[in-house]
């Protein structure tokens, strides 16, 4: 039983880091440019499609993945230059409407370019199989790799934002755009770069998820809502909040799905438990968010100035 709990916790963390990669870009763009980007999920999808194209083409998972990250970052930056930057000072609902339009556009575009069948990415041969992390618990090597990559990306982001000149510029841009400009930061370029970074992180999430979840039109929206939940629970604009909330959401979702039916079985009659458990585990995340926001209306780690 303990090993099962441990394994499920690992699954929860693995889902959590995927959500974090997506939420990090959202919360950065949100916190710094005050921009609601519903189309972030489209970048996740486009990243996965690029990876599913480049990996077989290059014959290498790593090379294909890097190409996909670069290509998605380029798409993100193009969107920033063409559309986003015209909307930073606009009402949130205008941003929602425009980026909703982008979702429709990208979902149709991938259908037209890559066909309706969807794609898949094979697990690289060196990650096929399982690892015995503790004896008797074989854990899929690929999931472990996803977990490690996600944590590494989180660490990279932390160092980037808090320890480097670029990060200093990002933070300056977040707290005071005029001051940042006075410091000689090219705000326009900085913002384009931030969207590019967010796009690359979304693509990373997309391509890491692809061998587990496959690649199809509309895959972005299935996870986008969860990523927004993470951003909101964590507190908009807070990378640290996004990280904590992502792991929390991942754990609550996974552990809830794994153990809630049994708990309810023990508490309620079979029939009622069968009816209640799936509905409850579906809404568990939303319930969590409602409770968090009812107590802390600006999330767990409200960023100052937001």
């Amino acid at each position, binding site marked *: 039983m303990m090993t099962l709990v441990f394994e499920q916790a690992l699954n929860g963390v693995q889902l959590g880091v995927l959500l974090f990669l997506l939420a990090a870009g959202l919360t950065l763009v949100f916190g710094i440019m005050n921009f609601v980007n519903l189309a972030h999920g489209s970048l996740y999808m486009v990243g996965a499609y690029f990876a599913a194209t480049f990996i077989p083409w290059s014959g290498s998972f790593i090379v294909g993945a890097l190409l996909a990250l670069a290509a998605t970052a380029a798409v993100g930056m193009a969107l920033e230059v063409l559309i986003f930057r015209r909307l930073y000072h606009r009402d949130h609902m205008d941003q929602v409407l425009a980026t909703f339009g982008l979702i429709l556009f990208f979902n149709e575009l991938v259908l037209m370019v890559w066909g309706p069948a969807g794609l*898949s990415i094979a697990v690289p041969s060196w990650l096929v199989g399982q690892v015995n992390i503790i004896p008797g618990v*074989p854990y899929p090597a690929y999931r472990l790799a996803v977990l490690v990559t996600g944590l590494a990306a989180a660490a990279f982001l932390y160092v980037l934002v808090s320890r480097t000149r670029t990060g200093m510029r990002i933070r300056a841009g977040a707290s005071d755009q005029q001051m940042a400009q006075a410091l000689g930061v090219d705000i326009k370029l900085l913002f384009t770069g931030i969207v590019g970074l967010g796009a690359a992180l979304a693509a990373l999430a997309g391509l890491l998820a692809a*061998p587990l979840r496959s690649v199809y039109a509309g895959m972005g929206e299935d996870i986008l809502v969860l990523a927004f939940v993470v951003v909101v629970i964590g507190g908009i604009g807070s990378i640290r909040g996004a990280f904590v909330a992502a792991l929390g959401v991942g754990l609550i979702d996974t552990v809830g799905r794994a153990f809630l039916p049994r708990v309810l079985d023990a508490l309620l009659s079979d029939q009622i438990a069968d009816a209640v458990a799936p509905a409850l585990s579906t809404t568990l995340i939303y319930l969590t968010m409602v409770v968090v926001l009812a107590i802390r209306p600006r999330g767990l780690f409200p960023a100052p100035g937001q």
Partner: protein
Amino acid sequence: MNLRGIGILAALAVAALVFWVTGPPNQPDQVRIGFVTTLTTGTGVIGADMRDAFELALDHMGRTMGGLDVSVSYEDDAVDPSIGRQKTERLVQRDKVHFVSGFIWSNVLLASYQAATDNDVFLIGANAGPSQLAGEACNRNFFSTSWQNDQTTMAMGEVLNDQVSTVYVMAPNYAAGRNMIAGVERTFQGEIADKTLTQFPDQLDFAAELANIRAASPEAVWVFYPGNFGTQFFQQYSQAGLLGEIPLYSTFSIDALNLPQIGELVEGTQMTQSWSPDMDNPANQKFVGDFRAKYGRYPSFYAAQAYDAAMLIRSAVEAVEGDLEDLNGLRQALARADFQSVRGKFSFGENHFPIQDFFLREVVRDADGAFTTRIVDVVYSDHVDPYAKDCSMQP
């Protein structure tokens, strides 16, 4: 005051509306068919396969039926009941179609069928088979070329009876998923080790459930994960290392659409179905052969059912010699099902659902190394769905 301005604008608007309303002229000597299916979203591949099969059927009949030209409009339902309903209304009310076919999803079909059947337009369901339409709500203008939801999994329950004594069952938590589980439970006499209903429509990561399966270590696992769900489930099942350990059975989860992606993983796994590409009858050989020649892939069961729907419609139009006003004649002809089905024998029960065989099939490689399925055994012969007895068809 601007009353005059308002009057002019209103007149203009009405004129525009009238122009819009008159729509396309109705051509008399034509069989008009509407085909409602899913062409966009992540499951658009199913609709595309059905459309390809329907087009192939039209090619095979020279795009005429009983001497009349055939025109088909394919409509996308985007897996949304209200869109399906709207498209069906348009086909029936505006385009004045004679037949509506297609319908992958139970909820879209249930929302839409009355728009056709209430107006004496025949609806030929080519996939969804909800129990309501097979039983109490059976309808004289509704016919199905697929199956009733429970049947295929009832056959699976019988298969499991022969092979295992405990099974772990898993499906998404929606009506079809719960029906499928109920079907297995209806016939399986061993022990259900555990039953897991996963989130619908957005759960795509099964890590938690797979860990639970490993911990429960049942004799076998049976799942229902259609479309993308299937692809994802089998990939993750394999990555979790369960594939060799716990035998996996499935229903409607492995099809010609996802076999190219997951064939390697699921080679040898077994499922039940009422059709298979290797069925040895002339109609099927022609269908599968020409489909592969034209589109370069195996047809899915969705395609086979759509092909049969086209052939069924033609048989009726020919029976009334192209007199599409003869609704009773068409209805009787449809009920006779006098056409060469790709399933070989095919007839309708009282409730207008097929009476047909159900097979056990398994995933194999064909001579070219492509993945397909092959019939292993006949599970049911001439099987009648369990809801037929609740149907009292109004003539």
